């Protein structure tokens, strides 16, 4: 009964989505306030029914209702409670329901927190979100209904994929979806602005915090995913350039370009058309990401299904959304005024450089991701693009991005004399080149040009941030003035920028050191045997059988000693076999540290108590995720900036007053 209720709620949600997508939009076009006013209640109603539907599916998992096909496939009576809940989005149908629910949540959030928005603008934004919702709800109801019944009901469920029975995976998809779907808000704002023909700084100011929040979720989601892959897949990798990883990374890159370009549009009224295009592109890429994941057209650990009907549906949906929005853009964008003028060299051009580089990187990743499809469609053979290519593409462009990143915060809007900027930055240049050369010398770890480069780039970011902070504090009197500045309007964006850029510095160091200096060894070990690796002694104490709630495992014990013979860690990696799906799974033993991780995986038993083991020493690997978290934190700070919550919202082009421009205008944002 309850699953039918869920199904019915889903249908009602679709009906309300249709209302939301049509009535307020039409009302806003022919000035019918009554129709426009329908947007909020329709959004709220859609959300309520989606929530009911989602609750019904959660309930089905909790009570082990195996008459529901989806639950029978992915649920199990022995599953621990938390994984019964996370199993809801552990596979195709349920994750779509989560997608739809999150879209509903964003729609309601926009309707609640945008009270200052003119009613017809809000109505259009919500309408566009309703259209997206129709697409997803139809997809679910017609091709992948999570409430489909099975008769006769099996006695026991097929269990959740053991890889997914993990806390990291319980929270990774919702985070990522919040980001993916959150970009639909920026998309809807852009479409609404194109329809209304009113693209100004106020528009940028409205859509900026939403874009930032979505971007924060995406950042955290990707970081969590990378961390999860590291400890759960058992082979110590933290990024694989897997098609699905790329699918989440591409919207992130474009959204990164978008938040920077929105800053220009908000502050200077420039880049309007470009910003709109980026907003359309970012959401299109997240839809493409969904397409790649769901249709299973690309070989990937993430693909749930390989059903052509689903693939076709998403493809058509994708064409409508991307094609439609680009057509609207082509039709309306020429009417948009070009806005703020600027010089050849100024902060605008530096940010433009950032945008170009980010889009170019995205384009190459897109090429590499889709190349196997293109080759196969053209009959050129079955290919895959090697990991090194993606890495090379990223490593070639990132240094330029970082150089701009150091200059941007110090450069002035509108007009900047290059010599002045060079003078301001000469200390940063000196520090970074000096540090880079020093660390590239053979004194340290035998010297590595890559480490030198990474250190130079990170120091460049950090020292230019210090210079920027010093410049900002010059206008704030004493410590009290500085403390007061933390709460001032516009400072959320500024300090958010500082923290996020600092995160990039951490990320660069982490990535470079772990790729350059990680040590890996596959080895056969007998109980009691020791082996030296990266200044540590590993002693294998043998393995014994242990039993978990829904699995059996062989658990190895490895003691790790440092050079002085002191024990630094006892690691207990496991080889698990889950009772229902009977597939083996490697659970790594990790000793985490700020400066290094020690990581051990069990391979297979070789008889006589011998095991093959994989030992890793991974320096600075945590800095990768620390960097990711800092980037997310910076975005969050920027999103909660006071100026987005000011009661006296300025709805015209924001030109900061002269004094403000002197103090903050040239540096914040």
């Amino acid at each position, binding site marked *: 009964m309850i699953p039918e209720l869920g199904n019915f709620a889903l249908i009602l949600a679709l009906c309300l989505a249709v209302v939301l997508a049509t009535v307020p939009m039409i009302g806003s076009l022919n000035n019918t306030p009554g129709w426009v006013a329908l947007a909020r209640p329709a959004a709220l109603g859609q959300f309520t029914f989606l929530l009911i539907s989602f609750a019904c599916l959660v309930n089905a998992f909790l009570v082990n209702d195996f008459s529901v096909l989806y639950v029978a496939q992915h649920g199990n009576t022995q599953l621990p409670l938390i994984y019964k809940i996370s199993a809801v989005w552990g596979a195709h149908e349920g994750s779509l329901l989560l997608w739809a629910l999150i879209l509903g949540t964003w729609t309601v959030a926009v309707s609640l927190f945008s009270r200052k928005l003119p009613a017809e603008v809000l109505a259009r934004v919500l309408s566009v979100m309703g259209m997206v919702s129709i697409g997803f709800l139809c997809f679910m109801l017609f091709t992948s209904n999570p409430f489909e019944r099975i008769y006769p009901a099996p006695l026991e469920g097929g269990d959740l994929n053991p890889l997914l029975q993990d806390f990291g995976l319980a929270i990774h998809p919702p985070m990522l979806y919040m980001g993916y779907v959150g970009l639909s808000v920026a998309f809807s704002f852009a479409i609404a602005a194109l329809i209304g023909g009113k693209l100004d700084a106020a528009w940028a100011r409205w859509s900026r915090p939403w874009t930032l929040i979505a971007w924060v979720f995406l950042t955290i989601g990707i970081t969590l995913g990378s961390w999860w892959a590291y400890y759960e897949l058992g082979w110590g990798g933290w990024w694989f350039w897997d098609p699905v990883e790329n699918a989440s990374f591409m919207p992130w890159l474009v959204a990164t370009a978008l938040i920077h370009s929105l800053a220009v549009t908000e502050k200077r009224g420039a880049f309007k058309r470009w910003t709109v295009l980026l907003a359309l592109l970012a959401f299109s890429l997240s839809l493409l990401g969904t397409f790649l994941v769901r249709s299973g057209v690309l070989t990937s650990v993430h693909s749930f299904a390989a059903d052509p009907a689903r693939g076709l549906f998403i493809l058509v949906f994708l064409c409508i959304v991307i094609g439609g929005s680009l057509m609207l853009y082509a039709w309306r964008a020429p009417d948009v005024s070009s806005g703020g003028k600027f010089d050849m060299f100024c902060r605008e051009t530096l940010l433009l450089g950032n945008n170009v580089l980010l889009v170019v990187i995205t384009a190459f990743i897109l090429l590499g991701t889709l190349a196997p499809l293109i080759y196969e469609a053209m009959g050129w053979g079955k290919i895959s693009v090697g990991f090194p290519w993606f890495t090379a593409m990223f490593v070639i462009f990132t240094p330029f991005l970082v150089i701009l990143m150091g200059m941007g915060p110090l450069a002035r809007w509108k007009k900047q004399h290059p010599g002045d900027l060079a003078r301001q930055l000469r200390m940063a240049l000196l520090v970074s080149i000096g540090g880079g050369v020093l660390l590239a010398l053979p004194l340290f770890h035998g010297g590595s040009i890559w480490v030198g480069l990474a250190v130079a780039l990170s120091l460049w970011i950090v020292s230019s941030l210090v210079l920027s902070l010093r410049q900002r504090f010059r206008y704030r009197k004493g410590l009290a003035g500085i403390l007061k500045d933390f709460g001032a309007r516009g400072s959320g964006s500024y300090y958010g920028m500082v923290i996020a850029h600092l995160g990039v510095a951490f990320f660069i160091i982490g990535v470079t050191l772990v790729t350059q200096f990680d040590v890996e060894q*596959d080895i056969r070990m007998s109980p009691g045997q020791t082996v030296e690796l990266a200044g540590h002694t590993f002693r294998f104490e043998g393995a014994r059988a242990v039993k978990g709630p829904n699995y059996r495992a062989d658990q190895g014990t490895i003691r790790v000693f440092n050079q002085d013979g002191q024990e630094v860690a006892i690691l207990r990696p496991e080889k698990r076999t889950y009772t229902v799906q009977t597939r083996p799974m490697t659970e790594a033993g990790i000793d985490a540290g700020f400066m290094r991780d020690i990581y051990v995986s069990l*391979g297979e038993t070789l008889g006589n108590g011998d095991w093959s083991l994989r030992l890793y020493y991974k320096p600075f690997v945590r800095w990768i995720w620390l960097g990711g978290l800092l980037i997310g934190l910076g975005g969050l700070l920027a999103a909660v900036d006071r100026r987005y919550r000011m009661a006296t919202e300025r709805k015209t082009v924001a030109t900061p007053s002269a004094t403000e421009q002197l103090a903050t205008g040239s540096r914040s944002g």
Partner: protein
Amino acid sequence: MTPKRKKRVMLIVLMLAGVAIAAAFAMQAFNENLMFFYTPSEVVSGDAPTGHMIRVGGLVTEGSVQRQSDGLTVKFDVTDNDKTVTIQYTGILPDLFREGQGIVAHGRLQQDQLFVAEEVLAKHDENYMPPEVADALKATHDKAVGGSTKKVN
């Protein structure tokens, strides 16, 4: 054209030139990093190049897995139910590597037709068959194995 406009055009030209050069390098690197897929039949008939990074995939033949004396080097056969290639790999095999399972290996083909793998992939889902392997099996028309055993879930 005003001087200002000229400057701006110059900037755009410079940017485009930069992007074009980058794209040229990228495409060259792209071609070097392409890995083509070959079925065991293609390898045996000599269609696959030796010494290049390629991918080979098929089902692991039952009873073919031999562990060498060092405990880490493994030799096994993969088949598309027509022809068979021997693969050698040193290291720890993935969790889902099993006889009868579809796998894909990255590596280089030696002159003596031995395929030395640098990486062996068995997918994280036992219902899942690498699409290349499925196609290769389909091509040999072996109904007993059922080329597309992909279970939709």
